[in-house]
């Protein structure tokens, strides 16, 4: 099992990244982690998800958003977070399920797309791909977050 806290630097545990230190175009990852049945079960409970909605031919899948707690792994492992980051936007597509009855090894890669200021606030925009170790895609995302001054 890989808990997100085992691979994501936690706010305050190391020096956080200043806005100026993010680099547009910077490659993120690859970083690998295991999503286990126990994590899937914990996620079902944490987000009050309806298990019945995620059955495929009588096999229990995880909510595809089970990857969200791992979402920032690619960027935070390269750019540890400061306190007070606020998420602004997420665009996510799912390609293949994570099953609730097996451990899935996920490989995450990404790239910083751009950094910008809007209404006096500073933002980081980046993308990531999550795939099985075999290369089969699981999910892709583009995320924007606000870095506190």
């Amino acid at each position, binding site marked *: 099992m890989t808990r997100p806290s085992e691979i994501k630097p*936690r706010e305050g545990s190391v020096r956080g990244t200043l806005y100026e230190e993010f680099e547009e175009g910077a490659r993120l990852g690859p970083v690998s982690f295991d999503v286990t049945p126990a994590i899937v079960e914990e996620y079902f409970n944490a987000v*009050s998800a309806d298990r019945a909605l995620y059955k495929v031919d009588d096999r229990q899948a995880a909510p595809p958003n089970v990857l969200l707690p791992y979402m920032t792994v690619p960027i935070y492992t390269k750019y540890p977070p400061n306190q007070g980051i606020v998420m602004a936007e997420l665009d996510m597509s799912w390609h293949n399920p994570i099953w609730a009855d097996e451990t899935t090894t996920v490989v995450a890669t990404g790239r910083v797309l751009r950094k910008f200021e809007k209404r006096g606030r500073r933002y980081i925009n980046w993308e990531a791909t999550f795939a099985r170790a075999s290369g089969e895609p699981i999910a892709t995302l583009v995320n924007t977050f606000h870095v506190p001054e």
Partner: protein
Amino acid sequence: MKREIDITQEMIDGYGRINGDNDIIHYDHDYALARGFRGTLLHGPHMTAFAADLGAKRYGKEWLYRGHLKTKWIGPVCPKDRFVVELSDDGTVKAESGGDVAMVGLATLKD
């Protein structure tokens, strides 16, 4: 279709445990007030998860293979709020919390 959830600090803490963050904006009421919010904040991806359930309900198993969920977090969601998220027939997502719009977006299937 619509979903209504009463938000508690315990829910935020539970998401924080699996999320593995230590961002005090989710856990320190006084810090959140100092940042100009009404209280501690529900994680944005936690809001997204509530909307994702509606996508799964609408699209069935195709959601797992072709689901596309776009969410923009535009307002705070705090403990004691009633969070109401709605998925319209055209795939538009809108959520309100504490009487204000908290999230907008889109839940659709990709070709």
